[in-house]
């Protein structure tokens, strides 16, 4: 058992630090902060990562991965988070990419993978439906065969950034025979196809990132089917495990907690720094103690994967604990912001009326409620652990 960094690791860390410091410049940071320039910022940043060859560290080298060790991946993630840089938009590189290189045919790999790496296509995820949330396998959007095409009808919901998307990867029903999981296929659909309509959903934080996507007689070429018909559930399950590990976000939570600590130091209540308030200290250390553990839980999972194992039920653990910790830090930020947590910074920026971080704290806290719901709700994750780890039926 050894978690120290080698000299090579340390010099790798210097390289990563130096790259982030120069590539993630102030102009780009500003672009990320405004909703009107957000899309361009995401694409621009991902292109810079691509030019550096670091856009997809988790992909196999043959498809454009970096070939890093799990220690290097850990270093990269930690440095990214401590530089305050967001994760790459997950839908392309993190989700559909691995499905395509694992289960797609040569033609699909050749066409889609480079476009994903170069951020030429913005992907979104078509899984949940109005009637199928936690019970994803009950989905009803159907794809009926018509010569060389499928005709798709139905609706997907909670589709993040569908308004920007060029492509959507969908789970669709191609059969109603047998178990509900057995009739699902994995289909890639061009968002510009006739019959697709994107309806915005305004979320609790007053923003628009979520959507409902309607499909009315949408023609999709059969060459866009991944793998075999009716095997989509298996492909999706392997993707979900990926998604759940990513969701833990330990490095980002650590950075957010440190940020909270610094803000609390400056906040004064009754002449005393909030950071010296025993009740506040208890809140803060409760989170930090769990994070110290969670960081190593994540490393243990990464080590298993590196040794050739697949992330299984452990990824459910990471998802549950990771999202709980994210929400706990978001709550701490609200606590620090006190009255100013409520300020809607539409007319005046937050710093004019109170704490500059008030608006950001509110948005993160409110939208952060979704983290224990999406990617398979935490209740579903507990079912997975109960069944797969504890053997309870």
């Amino acid at each position, binding site marked *: 058992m050894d978690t120290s960094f080698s000299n090579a690791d340390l010099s790798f860390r210097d390289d990563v630090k130096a790259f982030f410091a120069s590539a993630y410049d102030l102009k780009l940071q500003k672009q990320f902060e405004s909703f009107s320039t957000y899309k361009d910022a995401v694409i621009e940043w991902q292109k810079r990562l691509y030019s550096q060859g670091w856009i997809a560290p988790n992909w196999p080298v043959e498809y454009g991965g970096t070939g890093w060790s799990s220690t290097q991946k850990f270093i990269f993630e930690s440095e990214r988070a401590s530089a305050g840089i967001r994760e790459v938009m997950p839908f392309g590189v993190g989700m559909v990419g691995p499905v395509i290189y694992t289960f797609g045919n040569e033609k699909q790999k050749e066409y889609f993978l480079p476009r994903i790496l170069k951020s030429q296509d913005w992907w979104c995820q078509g899984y*949940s439906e109005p009637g*199928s*949330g936690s019970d994803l396998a009950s989905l009803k959007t159907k794809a009926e065969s018509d010569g060389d095409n499928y005709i798709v009808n139905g609706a997907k919901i909670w589709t993040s950034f569908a308004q920007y998307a060029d492509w959507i990867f969908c789970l669709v029903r191609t059969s109603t025979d047998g178990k509900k999981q057995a009739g699902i296929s994995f289909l890639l659909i061009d968002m510009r196809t006739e019959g697709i309509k994107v309806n915005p959903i305004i*979320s609790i934080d007053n923003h628009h990132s979520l959507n409902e996507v309607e499909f009315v007689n949408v023609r999709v070429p059969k060459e866009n089917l991944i793998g075999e018909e009716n095997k989509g559930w298996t492909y999706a399950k392997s993707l979900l495990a990926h998604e759940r590990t990513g969701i833990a976000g330990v490095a980002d939570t650590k950075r957010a907690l440190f940020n909270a600590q610094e803000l609390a130091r400056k906040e004064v209540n009754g002449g005393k720094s909030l950071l010296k*308030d025993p009740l506040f200290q208890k809140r803060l250390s409760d989170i930090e103690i769990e994070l110290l553990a969670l960081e190593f839980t994540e490393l243990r999972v990464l080590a298993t994967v590196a040794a050739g194992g697949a992330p299984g039920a452990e990824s459910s653990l990471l998802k549950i604990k990771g999202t709980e910790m994210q929400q706990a830090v978001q709550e701490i930020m609200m606590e620090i912001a*006190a009255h*100013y947590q409520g300020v809607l910074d539409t*007319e005046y920026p937050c710093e004019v009326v109170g704490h500059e971080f008030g608006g950001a704290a509110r948005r993160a806290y409110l939208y952060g409620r979704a983290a224990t719901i999406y990617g398979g709700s935490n209740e579903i994750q507990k079912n997975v652990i109960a069944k797969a780890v504890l053997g309870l039926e």
Partner: protein
Amino acid sequence: MNFDFSEEQLMLRESIARFIQDDYSFDYRREISQSALGMSEHIWKKFAELGWLSIPFSEDCGGFGGGPVDISVIMEEFGKGLVLEPYMPTVLLFGKLIDAAGSEGQRSDFIPPIINGELLGAFAYLERQSRYELSDVMTKAVSNSKGFLLEGEKVVVLNGQNAAKVIVSARTSGDQFDREGISLFLVSSDSDGVERVSYQMMDGQIVSNFRFNKVSLTADSLIGDLGDGLKIIEGVLRAATVAISSEALGIMEELNRKTLEYSKTREQFGSAIGSFQVLQHRMVDTFMAYEQVKSLLYRSVCGLTETASDIECTVHALKALVGKTGKQIFGEAIQIHGGMGITDELDIGHYAKRLMMINTTFGGEDHHQGKFNFLRYG
């Protein structure tokens, strides 16, 4: 021992509940929250006609002479309807400060127009640096030959935008954190030297920051005795804390009720999600948490009515529990509603945001638990 409401209190509850059902739909409320005033003048007039604005004031100035139980009933029902109109700032803060400490002249000048619905008021006591600490006052009122000169800034003033008159806490002697030396002044919001910046909060209410640049006040703007303001503030805010906790209780009841209802209709895995034991237990937990808040609220309401010696402690305990339970109840309501819970369209998120704001109003959970700890354990 009797926890029953009187006939009159039951009628009051019934009439507010009917008003919300008939005249204050969620969609109508949304329209109000998006209007420039952030409140409805028409609804406010209606409150006056129905006599609700008169309830906490004594009979000698035209009031109904109601007590903490009556106020609690009103606020609980307002909570269920997420009422935006400024009952708290105008009646329970501005009005009750004048009622508690004002001169005969001030009471007869200002309380009747509040009752008639003609005067909207506010109470400006928070400062940018003060967080929740009431004695942290830097705004100064310096006495001169004509009266006082007011200088300083107040923040997050509830109903500040629409208030014609504002009561301002200011230091007339002592240092920043001294309990003595704080005085209360009545200021017209259109006076020379008053600057106002108004902004909306996530629960829809519009609040203001006030800047007072050497504002001239006449000697009769002083409310209560010079330098003795903090005790008045604490008394009025204690009652207001119980009132806003009543509002929170109403919200918690609605959130629990709506969540339970949803769990019976939303089906996943071929059954209503309310049939899953894990959700049943959590809804039992939120039900019990709600009952505990109700009990501590009743304890506080009785304590206020009977001026119990431990009322200070009880109210700190209440506000701490409201903060903690609020998070638990809105957290479960959102989680059990799934994606729907985080939409702007559904009312669940709006109830949640109001609970969040209630937690920060008159001091958050930790602030009150800290005060409780200090009183109980030193």
